[in-house]
């Protein structure tokens, strides 16, 4: 079957992203850029401790990029919301693509950027916590 350039889910996420914006009192922020295409992404996370686990209570993004970059950002947020930080780090780009239905081959790097954004945000959280302990 000949597929449209973008899946329905990508278009839906691009036109109606649920998670864009900034968390004012975010616990951490991850900022990543794609040196090749010039897209950039910021992910803000709010972390809550529940029963010894650190859970991503809320996550929002700001993305300057193509429709795929916006859709992958939005999907990545949904995939990790309510998950522990450790679980969030395990999300790989293939999972984001699968959740979006599909991505054109040339846009796979957008999903990689979203994963890098998650890693950066969680990494920023750990770094902040470490410096607070000192």
């Amino acid at each position, binding site marked *: 079957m000949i597929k449209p350039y973008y899946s329905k889910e990508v*278009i839906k996420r*691009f036109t109606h992203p649920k998670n864009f914006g900034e968390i004012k009192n975010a616990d951490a922020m991850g900022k990543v850029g794609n040196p090749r*295409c*010039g897209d950039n992404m910021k992910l803000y996370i709010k972390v809550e401790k529940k029963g010894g686990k650190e859970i991503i209570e809320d996550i929002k993004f700001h*993305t300057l*990029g*193509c*429709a795929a*970059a*916006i859709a992958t950002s939005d999907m990545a947020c949904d995939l990790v919301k309510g998950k522990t930080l450790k679980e969030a780090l395990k999300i790989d780009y293939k999972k984001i693509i699968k959740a979006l239905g599909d991505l054109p081959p040339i846009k796979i790097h957008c999903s990689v950027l979203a994963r890098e954004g998650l890693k950066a945000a969680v990494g920023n959280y750990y770094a902040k916590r470490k410096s607070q302990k000192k």
Partner: protein
Amino acid sequence: MKKRIYLDYAATTPVDPRVSRAMLPYFSKKFGNTMSLHSFGQEAKLALEKSREEIAGLIGARSEEIIFTSSATESNNLALKGIALANKDRGKHIIISSIEHPCIIESAKWLEEQGVDETKVSSSRFAKARVFEVTRLPVDKYGRVSPGDVKAAMKKGTILVSVIHASNEIGTIQPIQEIGKICKEKGVYFHTDAVQSFGKIPIDVNKMNVDLLSASSHKMYGPKGAALLFVRKGVRIEPILHGGGQETGLRSSTINVPAIVGFAEACETAKREMKRENERIAKLRDKLIKGVLTKIKGAHLNGHPRNRLANNANFWFQFVEGESMVIQLDLMGIAASTGSACSSAKLEPSHVLLAIGLKHQEAHGSLRITLGKWTTEREINYLIKVLPGIVKRLREISGN
């Protein structure tokens, strides 16, 4: 489906119904091969030569100076490679601008990469000497090549200068006549890629001082699959397609008669309607530019404010990415294009926008709107109405 608005005429144009009507007999009725001696072949041959004569007449050329090809890419490949190969005994230096279409840039690059010069190999110092050498001329902030730069770049052994007549991306029109004059004085062949200007501004190969000129049918309401290369009589050029010897041996291939008949009809139509149509489109284009620049903060016009094709508007917007604008516009039924890296197969921003001095992130936010024969004021009004909202929403998403 709701009504769609096509504003990407620089990519391709719909075929004018008068053109398709002219083509129809040549598919199933007068379908002959122009090389056949029988009546089927001869009526096809007649149509081919009539088309050639018509087009030649429109640009001040002789019939035998028009070589039909299948595409502008082919014409430009033939111009560069054909001239280079036929004239390497005279010299090996080629000058192009930095805002050429990829088919010129890549042809030049290919020539540059061709082997070593046998005459220089004996000396180990020159073991890596290339056969062909290419100079790429810079442009000013509007995308114009300076004729003085052309002159300065010339040296002993320069065989060809190739400068695009009007930019496919930003619409800037080059001082072709002046550059041509310099080439003429220096005895260097001059080629121009006139794909975007052909049918939009008057072309006279003699006034323009060009030795070679490329044009394509599908950018001017003709069918895809027909293009031409004007080759001035006496210019030394080698074919790149070898075979049955069509097009005076310069371009072997069975002649695509229906497409060429359509191309000729499109040229005739353009000649008749060019002036009036240009005035109409330029007004709409100016309205669009004014509307966009006044209604959207951080919007900039790319290319020359006046010296540009009547149908071209090219912008860049701060804090917005071009592909997302194109996708959003498409969802609203409007077809446009962008020079953003995100929309390119190579993930690189437009080399034209970079050449006029835009930064990577500025080219990232570019949007090209190209108008045409069927563009109405209502369509332009609609675009001016919806674009600010699109930019605003995408800026919210980008956090700006």
